[in-house]
């Protein structure tokens, strides 16, 4: 991108000559926000949909294999929804929070239940 690129002129943001970390230019801040959301969408969305599919697979009142298949089938729709949420949220922080809170709750419950299950199996045998 050359200095005469019209994009910056159009943005009305002068290109900063020095870029101290805390004084990012508008363009740079925008890029960081996009990168942050992309990370949230791709990684965070995957983690959330994996947790949801696991929860469905464990707790749907169906035969075990059926519940697992249902949870896995639904996971891609959940993933797509999560990605759309990330890019629709008002700020990158809200986007992250919207994924992190449900993921943390689900993860914690799953962890407790699975640990309980392992302990129960251990006690039974």
């Amino acid at each position, binding site marked *: *991108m*050359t200095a*005469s*690129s*019209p*994009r910056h002129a*159009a943005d009305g943001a002068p290109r900063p000559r020095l870029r101290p970390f805390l004084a990012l230019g508008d363009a740079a801040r925008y890029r960081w*926000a*996009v990168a942050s*959301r992309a990370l949230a969408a791709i990684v965070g969305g995957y983690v959330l*949909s*994996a*947790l949801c*599919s*696991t929860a*469905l*697979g*464990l707790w749907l009142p*169906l*035969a*075990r*294999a*059926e*519940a*697992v*298949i*249902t*949870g*896995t*089938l639904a*996971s*891609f*729709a959940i*993933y*797509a929804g999560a*990605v*759309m949420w990330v*890019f*629709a949220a008002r700020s990158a922080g809200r986007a992250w929070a919207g994924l992190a809170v449900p993921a943390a709750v689900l993860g914690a419950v*799953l962890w407790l239940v*699975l640990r309980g299950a392992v302990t129960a199996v251990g006690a039974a045998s």
Partner: protein
Amino acid sequence: MKEGFRQSMAWLHTWSGLLVGWVLFMVFATGTSAYFRDEISHWMKPELHGAPAASQVAPAQAAGQAVRFLEREAAGSPRWNIGLPSDREPDVRVTWTRPQPPGAPRQRPLAVQLDPATGERLAAPRATRGGDFFYRMHFDLHYMPALWARWIVGFCAMFMLVAIVSGIVTHRRIFSDFFTFRPRKGQRSWLDAHNATAVLALPYHLMITYTGLVTLMFMYMPWAAQTAYQGDQKTFFAEAFPNAAGSAPQKAAGRPAALVPLGPLVEQAQARWQGAAASRVVVTFPGDANAAVTVYRDGQASLSSNQASVVFNGTTGQWLEARGEAVPAASETRGVFVGLHMGHFAGPVLRWLFFLSGLAGCVMVATGLLMWAVKERQKYAKALAKGGRIGFGLRLVDGLNLGAVAGLPLAMASFFWANRLIPVATPDRPAAEIAAFFTVWGVATVAAIAWPARRMWQLQLALGGLLFALVPVMNPLTGGAGLVTAATAGHWSLVGFDATCLLLGMALLTSAWWLGRRKPAARAGTAPRSARAPQAPPPAANAPQPLAHPAAEPGLSPARHALAAAETQSS
């Protein structure tokens, strides 16, 4: 990323589509061709074009004939697989594995095509991957481990799903836009074409993307199965797909015993399926006391990919079990998803409809890619007018667009030509055909990135168009059955192949011609049109483009960008 839900979704649609668009175009193009995988393979083996077109032989009789061949040529093999003749595939295809000493590396099964009536080997066809090459490339790419390739394709498919859903959200007037086409209006025409092809086949696009992810879902999303079964995948698959396991013996007894005649078993199975044809018979441990015979129902009989099958004892002919008839709901849902993706159930009309929808998908991806470049170019209108240059990103996108949209058809046509021009005796011939494909595509892409200009679009489209359009001429000259011969003999799959190539070639040639015709108009003819438009942009934007960067997009005229920019969704 922008104010407002629709604006942020438009942004997401643009970027999720662009970043993986080139891979998606390839996936769409190869996947579309895979609907006619068998027909392509048949065309690519001209030695077989003389065989009777439709099999007059009943599957039961063909199975009996195939056994005579296998007993002679494949004695001692632990597994025979007999592909029975069908409407789409008139030959019998037998594959078998050779007896394998323990610890030896797994060998590829041997495959031979037989005459269904006599059970004799058909004229040995040339070595080629045929339509399987495109089918595999659709999800395994090439020259890389299949596992990586599947992750890459799955990643792109997920982007595609996001692009489709956000595209729908972006779309305010989804119904009326479908009937809107404003030709020769630069960016707006591309938008209309994109909308029309996307909305026209929208159910198909959504279905094909989601079901594509589902075909490999236990690889992409194994966590539910991992957790519910505590890592015991084997139990999971046995419970989820009871078809795969079964009561057939897993080991040879080591005592020889005669194999029961297969014909009556096939008939028994077909009677159970109310006359639905059998497509495949698998014999495990033929000639052993533990032999078993599994008869599979033809995929056309059901939407689901969970194929019904019947297992018999291979020495007594006693009925052992019927599988895949009462599949539980979720498993069947997955089966239907996978079945929809593969389209095995589709008869001729539906198969063509799928093919056309796939082509619409190619056009949707291509127009989307081009639209990004057309829009981005507006930002450089002033700089270009002053003799400046476009940015690196746009130049790269221009090059990749060209290499994908024009280069891939050129490479696919070259693959068919290579199939006929590479000598039959060439060692490792299938690899040579594939190398020809990638050489042409590579050269086209390098040339495209080096010089992403209108002339290059014309050149590659015209070359690809010529190669496709001349396929019906080349086919009879290189040993195949030409259009007339094939039509009189009733070889409709061969007729279809040649005719489709001709139509594709003409479409590519037309676009090349259209580009050439538009060129003077884009350079000099903008004035009258912009005069007609009241909000014409300042003349600076209308100035001829510098020679170094002629408009790379068909139909592009910077004059009309500003007109369209006001109305179209922002990027």
